[in-house]
């Protein structure tokens, strides 16, 4: 199959505070298929954000390559095409919205593309509908909740008609309600619109929604696998300083206490089925 993103032996160095270099990504290789939903987990400093910034050419590799839809991020002439195909959403809901009205904010990207007003209007309508915020188009962003602001930020990216969304801890600053709103919006976009998703999170319950989980540690990819494969290795995740979904944690503790239940339990439904045989 034609991959949408191919990362090959990518290394990234930052200049450190004292003139030293920080190897933030250490020989990373990763393929992401079109339409795939990939969650990236790992402790602070493991290189998640640095990786994310390579996916839309905000950073270019110190060595190795990052290919997006067949285009190398190192080549300047690809920059705009790549940024249009891969949209980024960041952590802080309060500094992603620039305009004074929701619809103006969403129109910002398409306006910069120089599109005709009717097309801009169509894209704004569509993007707001996709994130369920059409009734807020005339609202000022300061009146929105954190989850609503993040959905507007997602709409702003969608108005560029990207093929891939990269979200860097989009729920880290939200309350549980806001987290649900954002995650279910992203899942819907992935399933219904076939948008490729790369989703960085510290909430393991969110990572369960992905097709595949990538675990990063010290600038390397430690593991990749389905959520069931990854989260059944409770000891490894804990040793990396990561959480596990509560059902996986309980299943692990029960197994240690001698209860015989399968190893790949990660949801409450699966745990109930295993215990109520």
């Amino acid at each position, binding site marked *: 199959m034609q991959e949408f993103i191919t990362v090959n032996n990518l290394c990234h160095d930052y200049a450190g*505070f004292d003139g030293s270099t920080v190897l933030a990504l250490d020989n990373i290789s990763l393929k992401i298929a079109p339409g795939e939903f990939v969650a990236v987990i790992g402790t602070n400093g493991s290189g998640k954000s640095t990786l994310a910034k390579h996916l839309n050419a905000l950073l270019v590799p110190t060595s190795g390559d990052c290919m997006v839809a067949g285009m190398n991020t190192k080549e300047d002439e690809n920059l705009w095409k790549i940024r249009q195909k891969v949209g980024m959403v960041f952590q802080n809901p309060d500094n992603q919205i620039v305009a004074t009205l929701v619809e103006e904010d969403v129109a910002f990207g398409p306006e910069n593309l120089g599109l005709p007003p009717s097309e801009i209007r169509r894209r704004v309508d569509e993007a707001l509908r996709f994130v369920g915020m059409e009734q807020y188009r005339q609202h000022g962003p300061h009146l929105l909740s954190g989850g609503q602001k993040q959905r507007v930020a997602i709409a702003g990216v969608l108005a560029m008609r990207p093929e891939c969304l990269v979200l860097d801890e989009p729920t880290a600053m939200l309350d549980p309600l806001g987290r649900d709103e954002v995650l279910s919006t992203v899942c819907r976009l992935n399933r219904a619109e076939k948008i490729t998703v790369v989703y960085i999170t510290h909430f393991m319950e969110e990572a369960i929604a992905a097709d595949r989980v990538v675990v990063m540690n010290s600038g390397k990819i430690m593991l990749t696998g389905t959520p069931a494969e990854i989260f059944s290795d409770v000891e490894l995740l804990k040793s990396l300083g990561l959480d596990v979904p509560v059902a996986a944690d309980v299943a692990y503790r029960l197994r240690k206490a001698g209860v015989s239940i399968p190893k790949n339990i990660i949801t409450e439904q699966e745990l109930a089925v295993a215990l109520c045989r």
Partner: protein
Amino acid sequence: MSIELKNISYIYMKNTPFEHMALQNISLTINPGEFVGIIGHTGSGKSTLVQHLNGLLKPGSGEVFVDEVDLNARGNASKLAKRKVGMVFQYPEHQLFEETIAADIAFGPRSLGCEESEIKQRVCDAMEFVGLDYDTFAERSPFQLSGGQMRRVAIAGVIALKPEYLVLDEPSAGLDPRGREEIFSQIMHLYNKTGIAVIMVSHNMEEVARMATRLIVMNQGQISLDGNPREIFKNGSVSLQAAGVDVPRITALMRYLKGQGLKVDDTVITAEEGVKSILSALGGQGTC
């Protein structure tokens, strides 16, 4: 000795079209030795409430007393009373600014007019409390630290003021699991060791349930529940849902299992208790 709020109301942007009543007639007493968790959805008034505890916000109506002193009265007494309440804001690391960690933590005690030897002692003690080794970290720049460590420096800066009440507004927000655990265990350690009263706003139900001796649920500018955390998670599900907050994940899991017919205790709030209850349900009669 206590913090006492009497009939507090607070309105943002009063007399404008954006006027918003953020707190409605709140009365509340916080006693020494308590660990009060405050939960509620975003916008429910938690931050507005805690900013009244040290006089950062002046109530639109009502009164705030710290150890019997009215915070909004004129004079030196209210200034001293405010100092008894240390406040760690949300994302406090954004307020670090000195070149070294020690200098940042020393800023507060210095502005209180402490002697240099006293300042150094307080910096050492505060760093020890938040688990940052003095010799390793004192002369480093705070900006070389991880997010969790920067936040500990910010908390140390407040501890160095030797408050009698410590207020923390979402101290774990934005941290990774390890950072969250570090922060919570340092707070617990401080609480256990000094008996300082802690008032902590958090969205992390697991930790609030485990740490707090008392839980306050905010909804639309009012206190909708106030009591023992276990009792609230056990009996308050209707009010909790109305307030838009979750129960701890383990409690939700146990409820689900019970709904599926497994005879487990759905009032547990830690994974250890949950596993114990499942084991005894399985042991009693096999499965369901």
